[in-house]
C-alpha cells in the first residue's frame, strides 16, 4: 500500500514538473511578443526616431481603433479576403489537379516542367503588372496573381505526395480489384493528405502576398492599396496597422490548416503505448 502511494507521489511530482515545462513552452512565443512590444516602446520613448517614422505602440493602437470604427479597415480587408479566397481556390484547384496528372503520367512532367519552372522562377512582382494589363484593374487580376503564387507549391507537393504512395498498397488495391476511383479515394487521397496539407500551409501564407502585390500595382482598394495610400499621407500608424492585419490573415489561414491537420490526420498522433 505504502509502495503504491510512493509511486503515485513520484508520478505526481514528475507530472507537475512536466506541466510547468509545457506551460513555459506554450507561453514562450507570447514572451517574445511581449519583449518585442517593450523594445518598441523603449525605442519610441527614447525618441531616437521621430514619431512619424517609428510611432509608439499606443499611436498604432489608436490608429487601429479608428480604422476599425470608420469601417476603412474592414472595407479593404474584405476586398483582400475575397481576392485571396478565390485566388486560393483557383490556384489550389489547378495545382492539385495538374500535380495529380503529372504524378500519374510522368511524360507530362517532361512536357510541362520547362514552362512551370520558368513561370515560378520569375519574380511575381515583375509580372504582376502584366497580369493587370491582361485581366484589368478589377479583382480578377489580383485573383490571378494569388492563384499563380499559390499554384507552384501545391503542384510540387501533390506530385511528391502521389508518387510517394506505397507501391505495395497499390498492389493490394489491384489485387482487390479496386476501381480507379476507389484507389484514389481510399489510397491516394489519404496517403497524400499529410504532404498536401503541409504544402497548403505554405500556399495559404503566400496567398496574402499574391493579393497584396496585385493591389500594389493597380491601386483602388484592398489592404495593399491601403498601405500605399497611408504611406503617401505619412500616416505611419495606419501603415503598421495594415501590415499587422496582413500578418493576422496569414496566421489565421495557417492556423486553419493546422486545425484541418489535427482533425483529418488524427491517426498520426497514435503510436505504440
Amino acid at each position, binding site marked *: 500500500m505504502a509502495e503504491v502511494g510512493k509511486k503515485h507521489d513520484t508520478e505526481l511530482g514528475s507530472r507537475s514538473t512536466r506541466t510547468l515545462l509545457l506551460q513555459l513552452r506554450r507561453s514562450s512565443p507570447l514572451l517574445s511578443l511581449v519583449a518585442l512590444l517593450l523594445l518598441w516602446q523603449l525605442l519610441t520613448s527614447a525618441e531616437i526616431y521621430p514619431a512619424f517614422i517609428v510611432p509608439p505602440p499606443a499611436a498604432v493602437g489608436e490608429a487601429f481603433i479608428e480604422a476599425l470604427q470608420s469601417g476603412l479597415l474592414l472595407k479593404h480587408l474584405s476586398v483582400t479576403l475575397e481576392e485571396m479566397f478565390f485566388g486560393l481556390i483557383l490556384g489550389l484547384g489547378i495545382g492539385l489537379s495538374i500535380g495529380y496528372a503529372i504524378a500519374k503520367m510522368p511524360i507530362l512532367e517532361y512536357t510541362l516542367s520547362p514552362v512551370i519552372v520558368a513561370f515560378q522562377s520569375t519574380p511575381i512582382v515583375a509580372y504582376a503588372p502584366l497580369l493587370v494589363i491582361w485581366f484589368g484593374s478589377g479583382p480578377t487580376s489580383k485573383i490571378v496573381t494569388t492563384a499563380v503564387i499559390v499554384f507552384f507549391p501545391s503542384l510540387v507537393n501533390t506530385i511528391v505526395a502521389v508518387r510517394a504512395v*506505397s507501391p*505495395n*498498397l497499390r*498492389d*493490394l*488495391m*489491384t*489485387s*482487390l*480489384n*479496386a476501381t480507379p476511383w*476507389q484507389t484514389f479515394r*481510399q*489510397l491516394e487521397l*489519404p*496517403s497524400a493528405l499529410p504532404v498536401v496539407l503541409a504544402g497548403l500551409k505554405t500556399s495559404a501564407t503566400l496567398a496574402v502576398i499574391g493579393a497584396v502585390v496585385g493591389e500594389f500595382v493597380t491601386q483602388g482598394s484592398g489592404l495593399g492599396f491601403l498601405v500605399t495610400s497611408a504611406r503617401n499621407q505619412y500616416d505611419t500608424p495606419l501603415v503598421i496597422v495594415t501590415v499587422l492585419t496582413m500578418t493576422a490573415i496569414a496566421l489565421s489561414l495557417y492556423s486553419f490548416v493546422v486545425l484541418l491537420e489535427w482533425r483529418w*490526420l488524427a*491517426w*498520426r498522433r*497514435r*503510436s*505504440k*503505448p
Partner: protein
Amino acid sequence: MKLSLRELVVDFKTPDEGRLPALGPISLEVSPGEFVCIVGPSGCGKSTLIRTLAGLQRATSGSVAGDDVPITGPLATLAIMFQDANLMPWRTVIDNIGLPLELAGVDKARRHAAVYELLPQLHLQNFALSYPAELSGGMAQRVALGRVIVQRPKALLLDEPFGALDAMTREKISLELLDLWREHRQTVVMVTHDINEAVLMADRVVVLSSRPGKLVADIAIALERPRAINMIYRETFLRLVRETRAAIDPPDA
C-alpha cells in the same frame, strides 16, 4: 480451388530492353484444399510465382489457371497476403480488415459484423479501434491475415507472410494460420524461406532452383494433422527437412 501452372515462364524487362528470365518453365498442380509451400534460394522467382497466380504479374508464356479458368487478372476468390503487413496507417484495425468488403460494396453494418466475428480468432478483440502504429509486428500481420480471411477466398496466396517477424511470434502465428485453414480448407500456396516452417505446415513442399526458378523437387509431407510444434523433434520431420535442404543445395554443387 484447383490451381495449375502450365509451362509458365515469366521474364522481366531490363532497362536496356533486354529480358531477364525470372521463372520457369515450370508446371505445377495444387489440388483443392491442399497446402503447398514453395521454398528455394533467394531470387528464384518464388514471389513472381505468387504474383502471377494473384493476377498481378503477366505470364510471358505458358499459363496459370484457377479451376481450369485462365487467370489474367486479380480474382475475388483468390486472396494474397504480402511479406509486410501492408496496412493503411490511417485506418483502424477493423477498417483495415474490412477494406476488401468495403471495396466490394458491402454496407457498413454487414462489414463490421463480418470483421468483429473474426477478431477473437485473430486475438485482436481488444484492438478493434487501434491504428497500425499502435500494433506490434505480430498483431499487424494478424490484421493482414484477417484482411485475407474476411474475403472468404477459395485460395490463399501467401508471400513469405511471416518473414518480418521474430522466431517466436512467427511459430505462434504459423500454427494459428493452420487452425484457420483447418476450419475453412482453402487451397494455400505459401512462399517461405524457412524450411522448418515449410515442412511443419505443408502437405507438399515444392523446391525451386535458382533463377530462373524451375521445379527441382516436390516432396510430400507425410505428417498427420493437426500439426503440432513438438513434431519438429520427430525422425520423419528431420528426414523431410534434410531432404528439402538437399534439394535446395545439392551436395555435389
